[in-house]
């Protein structure tokens, strides 16, 4: 899902840069309201987890590979706005240092994985788990009570699965529209050369049948582990 440089034309990568910058600014403003200095290490830990989990490429035998993102899990633990920043930091370092995702495509990759995956995954979690309240801080009610029920876990799994699949869909959509947006004088595509009819099934099926399930399982297992080892972290937010 890390779109490299060259696959997106200027309309798409430029448009998604223009979309992500205000999201970063808004998210930063939201974090500023609540973040305490003592919570900064957990923000860093979350970003580190997102970076590391994306190193685990899961193979489809004889096919391609993919990986989890940790987006929904991190949103549940630190709140969606802090999660947007944490996952974005991981994606930006991956791009600059390791060429995993393009520089021009940072806006797109952050929009898909750090914004859409995080916000929708978290929204589904709250919906299914029946978490109420207007702000992420509302989930903190009970101050890290460590309470996470089976219903919370189901919500987390559903959010993780749907979140990553949404990110996969957006990636496929952005790649697939390039053949329509940018065609050279010789009639050949200038950027990603595959139409939607190719990109949507290619990217969606692998996420629906495998990577989405990996994401859900990791999310649920980490929450079960934290419920035991660090109950203070559950339902606290930043």
């Amino acid at each position, binding site marked *: *899902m890390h*779109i*490299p*440089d*060259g696959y997106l*034309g200027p309309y798409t990568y430029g448009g998604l840069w223009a979309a992500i910058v205000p999201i970063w600014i808004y998210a*930063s403003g939201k974090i*500023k309201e609540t*973040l*305490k*200095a003592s*919570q*900064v*290490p957990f*923000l*860093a*830990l979350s*970003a*580190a987890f*997102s*970076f*590391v989990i994306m*190193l*685990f*490429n*899961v*193979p*489809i*035998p*004889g*096919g*391609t*590979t*993919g*990986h989890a993102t940790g987006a929904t899990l991190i949103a549940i633990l630190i709140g969606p706005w802090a999660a947007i*920043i*944490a996952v974005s*930091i991981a994606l930006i*370092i991956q*791009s600059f*240092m*390791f*060429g*995993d995702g*393009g*520089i*021009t495509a940072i806006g797109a990759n952050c929009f898909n994985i750090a914004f859409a995956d995080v916000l929708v995954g978290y929204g589904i979690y709250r919906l299914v788990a029946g978490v109420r309240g207007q702000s992420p801080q509302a989930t903190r009610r009970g101050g890290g009570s460590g309470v996470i029920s089976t219903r919370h876990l189901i919500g987390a799994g559903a959010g993780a699965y749907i979140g990553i699949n949404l990110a996969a869909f957006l*990636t496929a959509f952005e790649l697939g529209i390039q053949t329509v947006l*940018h065609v*050279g004088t010789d009639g*050949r*595509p*200038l*950027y*990603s*050369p*595959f139409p939607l009819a190719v*990109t949507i099934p290619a990217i969606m099926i*692998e996420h629906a049948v495998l990577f989405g399930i990996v994401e859900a399982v990791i999310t649920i297992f980490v929450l079960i582990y934290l419920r035991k080892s660090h109950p*203070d972290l559950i339902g606290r937010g930043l």
Partner: protein
Amino acid sequence: MINFSKKFQASPYKKLWIGIGILILLSPLGIILPELFKSGGAWGEWGAEGLEKITGYIPEGLKKLSGLWKAPIPAYGFSGWKGLFKSSAAYIISGIIGVGLVVLVSILIGKFLARKK
């Protein structure tokens, strides 16, 4: 450094940081398993040459943009570190460097955003 190790010892998340370390050490599974199962890279993330093998040509715009940025450690590997053992070592070193940078940037941004006491 002394300060850092003291901070680490006192950190309520010590166990979780160790967990990140264990994940880094296990991360070569992310290249070994795909090798075992004969899986290629992620769909749609081929380099210009890889794409040419599929489509028979490199799209003009893609050719220009794909060379835009030379990452210091492309694809979490070092040139010349071939074979599963060496590429695994490079993957772990990349993981350490990557996590180090992510933590550094997160702490800088976090400190900037955090309320004073």
